[in-house]
């Protein structure tokens, strides 16, 4: 099948998914007992008279029948207008863009770190199977997956900002400094601890998976034959082992965008890091409906991209499938 056909199919799937997610989200929102006007105005609600409330409701179309509201909302989404955030008083799409730019480096670094460390740990554990190293790595992974992410973040915050004051207590940039004076180094400095913490959460999954696959590989016939040919040790692993488990590991990493995003929500809250995760929490605790809905859709796209890349990596890189396709054409 040609590349463009595949791409088209994937896009169609995405659109269908978004339509489904948006409808469900809309239904949930409309059933919400939260009064949007109250959420918007907040503490000033007592000062707002009845007339004004009616006027606001009219303006937002809150009194229209649900289907009309949905179609109005959906059509504006399709045109790229996700509404206006109640908290930030700016178009939702701008907010998401801004916050995501803030989070993207955090997400990327955490993702890379967890992938590399997890992969190395998995291989080490498999090669030294049964030894104390293997046991420690396994125990550590199981412990890590039972640890509340935000608690681990709190502990690291405690250790590295209070007891050993190496890193700043939080935020994305130094306090009291205007935006144009914040340097790249400043941002990096504030990002280190959150990124490291976020990466911790992803390590156990990939480490355990890699270990299992590596053990399978080491017990396989082709490794036996490679040993029969005189290959051994690291050379054996790098020649035959790595290639065969790199693929499943990379696929797993790309499929973990969902957990990554979830982790970021918690980590950003602990470190007061001004990214998309924190925006999600703000939106849900303060009842900012348009922003929340926008974030839900955006995160769905994010996860979808990750899963699609995971699927495609396999298709493109595994020669059995690649060559198979060639033979078909």
């Amino acid at each position, binding site marked *: 099948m040609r590349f463009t056909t595949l791409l088209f199919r994937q896009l169609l799937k995405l659109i269908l998914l978004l339509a489904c997610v948006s409808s469900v989200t809309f239904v949930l929102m409309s059933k919400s007992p939260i009064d949007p006007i109250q959420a918007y105005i907040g503490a000033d609600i007592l000062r707002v008279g009845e007339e004004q409330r009616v006027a606001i409701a009219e303006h937002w179309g809150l009194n229209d029948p649900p289907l009309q509201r949905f179609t109005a909302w959906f059509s504006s989404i399709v045109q790229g207008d996700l509404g206006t955030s109640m908290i930030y008083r700016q178009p939702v799409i701008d907010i998401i863009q801004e916050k995501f730019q803030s989070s993207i480096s955090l997400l990327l670094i955490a993702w890379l770190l967890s992938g590399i460390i997890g992969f190395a740990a998995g291989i080490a554990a498999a090669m030294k199977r049964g030894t104390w190293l293997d046991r420690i790595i396994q125990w550590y992974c199981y412990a890590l997956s039972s640890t509340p992410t935000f608690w681990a973040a709190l502990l690291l915050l405690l250790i590295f900002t209070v007891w050993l004051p190496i890193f700043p207590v939080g935020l994305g940039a130094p306090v009291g400094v205007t935006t144009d004076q914040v340097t790249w180094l400043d941002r990096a400095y504030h990002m280190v601890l959150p990124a490291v913490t976020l990466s911790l959460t992803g390590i156990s999954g990939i480490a355990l998976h890699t270990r299992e696959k590596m053990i399978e590989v080491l017990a396989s016939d*082709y490794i036996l*034959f490679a040993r029969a*040919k005189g290959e051994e040790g690291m050379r054996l692993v790098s020649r035959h082992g790595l290639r065969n488990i790199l693929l499943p590991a990379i696929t797993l990493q790309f499929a973990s965008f969902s957990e990554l995003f979830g982790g970021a929500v918690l980590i950003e809250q602990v470190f007061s890091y001004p990214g998309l995760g924190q925006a999600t929490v703000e939106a849900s605790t303060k009842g900012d409906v348009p922003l929340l809905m926008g974030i839900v859709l955006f995160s769905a796209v994010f996860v979808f991209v990750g899963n699609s890349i995971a699927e495609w990596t396999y298709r493109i890189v595994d020669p059995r499938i690649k060559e198979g396709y060639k033979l078909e054409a």
Partner: protein
Amino acid sequence: MHLLDIQQLSISFETYDYRLRKRTMPVIQKLSLSVHAGEILAIVGASGSGKSLLAHAILGLLPDNAVLSGRLSFEGQALTPERQQQLRGKQLALIPQSVQYLDPLMRVGKQVEQAVRIGDARLERQKAFERFRLPQEAAAKYPFQLSGGMARRVLVSIAAVSGAKLLIADEPTPGLDDQVAQETLRTFQQMAKIGSTILFITHDLIAAAQIADRIAVLHSGELMEIAPASSFTGNGDALMHPYTRALWQALPQNQFMDAKGWQQ
């Protein structure tokens, strides 16, 4: 001098039964045989008689839960695990059963080149392909793209380019059609002619009788008899052990006779 000497070799496995107690399962018992340089020695036996294990034992590739006793020596010197590691792929080579022993994600040409010990890798690979009648384009293929016969020839090439003195062929003929099987056997004969020693492990007594100089018969981990291939003719009268004789006579080409007594 014997190229390979096996003295009183016993192999057993430690396993855990359902009550999680350690049990030792014997697989090969007190096997002694020697392989002369330049000969083709066939080891024949039913499945489960421990033939493949013998190959792995010689190469030092037994699993961790295997218990070994006895002596192995190669060219007069003891075969310690260290020596086995040194000799694998250089003096001792394995020709495995099937294509699943090849790395599925690596092109076969490269896998052959990685086995070359003397000379330029690419050149040797090209020469080997020519010798075993493989098209040079096959080098770019992956194992899953090879036909049964081509896979067989690639595996033989890998063993040939290593320049090993002793080649151990583990079940080379099952699953191949007659023509390819015959071709494989002829290849072994050719290689023996130019000086390689071949240990030919199989359950196919006919194939063994065709090309081997001597045939060793294994049953339930024990060596029954070693006889020259010429003894395996006619009624099998020249065969000493009743088991070997019965085995020979049971073949469809011969009397297809049932043996009296029970078989394990």
